[in-house]
Each structure stands twice: as C-alpha cells, then as structure tokens.
C-alpha cells in the first residue's frame, strides 16, 4: 500500500525485523553448526559455537552408525519407515480426498451435506479420542506395529483435510462445465479425469504438501502404534535422546535432527507459496 509508512522510522523497522529474523533463524543455525562439531568439542563448551573442526562424520554416524535402543543402524531405517508411511498415505488421502471433494462440490447426492459436515469434524476432534479405538482396531485386523497400519490411519484421518481443501477449491468451478460434459456423454470418472483433474494442479500441490508435512511430522500415532524397528523418525528421535542421556553425543544427535527435518524443510523451501496457502486454507474452515 503506498505511503503507509513514515520515512524516519524505516531504519527502526528494518532493525526490528532483522533482529526477530535472527532470533527465528538462531535455533536452525545452532543445530546446523552443532551437527558439524565433534561430540567432544560440544561437551567442552556449549551447544552454541562455531565448529573448530568440521566433523562431517556426524552425518554418516547419524545416518547409519548410531545406536537407538540396542540397534545400531543410525536413523536410516526410521527415515525409511517415515517415507514408507508418508508417501503412500499422502497419495491415497490426496486422491481419495480429491474425488470426495469433487463429488460433494459438483455432484449433489442425497446426504452429501451431512456426511461432509461429519467428515470436516475430523479437523477438530483430538487424536486422543481415537487412540484407544485405533489400537483395538489395528490389533484386531493384525496391523498393530506395522507401517501399513499407520498408512491406513493417516489416509482415513487425512481425508478430513484433503476433502475440505479440494471441495473448497472445486466449488468455484462453474456447474455448467459439469452439465456440458454430462450432455456430451461423460460420466463421473471421465469428467473428473478429463476436466477436473487438469484444473486441479494448485490444490493438489497444496494438499500434497500439507499431508506430507503433517504425516512426516506426526508423532503421537507413531509412538503409540509402533515400537522398535517399526517406528517413524519422529518417534525414533525421542528414543534417541533417551538412549544417549548418559553419554551425550550432541554432534551426532544434531545431525540426526537435521536429517529428520530435511524432507519437510526442503518441501517448504520448494513449495513455500503452496505451503502458506495450505496453512491459511486450513484456518478458514
């Protein structure tokens, strides 16, 4: 907006903004630097400091050498677990949510408002209300302590978000487009595939980023429904810090933290605009 600012105080504005930005960046910088310092170096000083020797080996150790709860394979298996949960669950929940959002927004059917209303309640219902039932259900269908179980949970729970996102995007598509296609003889799936999906790029990116970030960062289900070698990386990080409480290995731990945070940070850097759009779309429920 033009001339909403007043010139003499612009320096102050820049100063304030830079200081806050520095404070916001500090934790990241500290961890990155620590991940490159040897454990001994950190133990002698504090967690905050410039590396005297670049200890790149921390990353190798964190990735595949480190011991978590009697297994010495680094965080690689847990990263793999997270990927094996996050990627399928993101794809399934996004696709199913897109179809569901398309159905409730552009194809009126009996009870659509009701069922959509209930599904969106899932945005608010605390996970704690579903913990016990999920435990029992997963045990009964033999998926407790499996990655498949986590994929199932995240797919079904993610539907609340993905359906909402896609529905809100699709309601802006003119109904006449659907009518024209129906007269042309296209059915539910052909219209989705040929007309709706080619228009869905932005919302699918938003949804995928949102789901990926959420599922990758999820902790409660991971720690509740899986143990040991089946845990996703968030749960493994907690186990890691418990395991090393006696002999601190902060350099390697920092490297592990960076590795664990890297996928979502990269996605954020690459798709920042869509990431923010997801945040605000989720807010205007």
């Amino acid at each position, binding site marked *: *907006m033009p001339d*909403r*600012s*007043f010139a003499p105080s612009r320096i102050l*504005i820049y100063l*304030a*903004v830079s200081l*806050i930005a520095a404070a*916001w960046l500090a*934790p*990241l910088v*500290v*961890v990155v630097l*620590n991940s490159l310092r040897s454990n001994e170096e950190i133990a002698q000083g*504090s*967690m*905050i400091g410039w590396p005297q020797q670049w200890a790149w080996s921390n990353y190798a150790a964190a990735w595949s050498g480190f011991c978590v709860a009697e297994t010495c394979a680094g965080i690689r298996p847990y990263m793999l677990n997270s990927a094996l949960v996050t990627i399928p669950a993101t794809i399934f929940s996004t696709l*199913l*949510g897109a*179809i*569901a959002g398309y*159905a*409730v927004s552009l194809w009126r059917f009996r009870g659509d408002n009701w069922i959509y209303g*209930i*599904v969106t309640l*899932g945005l*608010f*219902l*605390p*996970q*704690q*209300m*579903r*913990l*016990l*039932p999920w435990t029992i259900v997963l045990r009964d269908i033999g998926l407790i302590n499996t990655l498949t179980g986590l994929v199932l949970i995240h797919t*079904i729970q993610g*539907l*609340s978000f993905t*359906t909402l996102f896609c529905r809100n995007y699709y309601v802006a598509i003119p109904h006449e487009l659907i009518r024209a296609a129906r007269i042309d003889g296209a*059915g*539910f799936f052909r219209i989705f595939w040929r007309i709706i999906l080619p228009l869905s790029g932005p919302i699918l990116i938003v949804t995928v980023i949102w789901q990926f970030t959420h599922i990758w*960062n999820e*902790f*409660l289900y991971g720690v509740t429904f899986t143990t040991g070698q089946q845990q996703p990386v*968030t749960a493994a*990080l*907690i186990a890691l*810090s418990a395991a090393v409480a006696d002999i601190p290995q902060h350099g390697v*731990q920092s490297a592990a*933290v960076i590795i*664990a*945070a890297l996928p*979502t*940070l990269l996605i954020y850097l690459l798709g920042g605009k869509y*990431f*923010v759009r997801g*945040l*605000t779309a989720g*807010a205007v429920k």
Partner: protein
Amino acid sequence: MTSAVLTRPGRSAATELVRRLPEYLMIWVPLLLSAAHLVSFSLWTLWISFTPSTLVPVSGWVGLRNYTAVAASRNWQIAFDNLLLFGSAFVLLSAATGLILAILLDQRIRAENVLRSIFLYPLAVSFVVTGTVWSWLLNPGLGIQKLVHDLGWTSFKFDWLIDRDMAIWTIVIAAIWQSSGFAMALFLAGLRSVDADIIKAAQIDGAGAVRIYRRIILPSLWPITITVVVIQLQFAISTFDLVRALTNGGPGIATQLPALVVYDLMFQRSLLGRGAAAAVLMLLILLAVLLPYAAWRYIQRRRANHA
C-alpha cells in the same frame, strides 16, 4: 452435417446401478469410512470412559467414577492449571508476535518474501525437532546459560528448563517460535485485504500512518484475531509432542499437560477407563472453545446474509 448420434434406450434401474457402482463406491466408501470412524471412535472412547477398563477394555458401568478419579488426581490438576497458563500465555503472545511481524512486513520493506519464509519455516518442522532443539538451547548446562557463562558472565542465570515454577514457560517460548509465523500469515492476509480506497480516503482526510492503523486497519482485523486465537487454543489444548521432546512433562510433573496425562493413563499405567475419561475431558475443554466460536461464526454468517 455430422454423424448421427447413437441414441440408446433408457436403461433399467438395476443395470444403471451396476454401471454406476464404481463411482458410488469411490464416493461413498472413503467418505463413509471417514465419517464412521469419527463418530464411532468418539462414541467408543466415550463408552470406555464409563467402564472399569484397565489393561483391556471390559464392559461394565462405573458411572462417572473414572472422571472423578482423573479430576481428583494431582497429575490432572497440574496439567489443567498448566493448560490454563500455557494456553493463555502462548495464545496471547503468539498472536501479538504474529501481529507485530505482520505490521512490520506490511511496511513495503525489501526482502519481504525472504523474511516471511524465515518466520514461517518452523511450521514445516515437527514439534519433536522443535522440542529437541529448544531443550538443548534452554538446557542451562548446554545452551544459552552455558554460553553466557563461557563468555565470562558467570552469575547469569537462565535455567527455566529445570525450574519447576518456570519450566512451563520454556514450552511457551518454543511454541511461540514454532507458530507465530502462522498468526503472522493470517494477519498479513488480513492487512492486505483492507480496501485500498478506504486507506486513500483516510489519507485525504489527513490521517497519518499510525492513526490509519489504529482507527481503520486494526479494527478490521478482529475477526481474523478470533480465528487465530481459536486455532492456537486448539493447538494448545492438544499439545503433546512438543512437551514430550522438550521437558517430557518434567521436572517431575511440572510441565504436565492433559494430552500427556491421557497418554500416560492409557499406555503407561494401563488405566484405559481413566485414560478415556481424560480424553473426553480434553474434548470438553476443546468444545468450550469451539462451540462459542461456531456460534459466533454462525451469527456472523447470518448477519452477512441478511445485510
């Protein structure tokens, strides 16, 4: 002019149903699964909260005994007090931080995009990572206090992490760091959506920048403020990972929060009935926030429709 159109006779209802079965399945199965799990799981947990279940769910009826037991426990009382303190402090401070950041970024400053990315990146990181990192920074023997001591100021004290009275504030700090960017993003969108003509009119009326903010822009932000507050409260009520990674409820049980109590009762003490009761209590706290908000939204919408 063109090929004749193939007109097929109308199909019977049964063949029509069979033909459209795939689309019915694709529409209904995911939606029904999602809706059914939400409803049935909530009712299930509610039911367990009225049973004497311990290690495994059992049938039986104990009325409100689980609730009274949870409410009377020290664990829950501390968790509830902490939630009140953490919830209000975190929500107010993060909304204020977000608003300040948004106003600063709204001054047509250079590198706005870079700065915005910096304030938002914590949202891309898991609470486990945030908690772990802040547990290092705030650890008096490792982090900021140690650094200041090493620099020579040995009387400096910043040991909230191990101070029973102050430990909850470490969670406030980490939570603000993590999610002020979210408030900022919403506020910034609100600031940008103020009608430019209104600003111009105010400038012509002779209003300065400060007055324009105070009298015109900020008053238009209050609906967004309510949204921000409600969403942050919702987050505060269900906070779990952050505390697990930062203090694990300690020192002692000084930073206990309801979500931790639920987990503790369900999976560490195997008191499923009580755990379920605590989960239902969490839901009730959440409803105390969300229902007024929903009512407010409903009234707003009604008013908008009538206008």
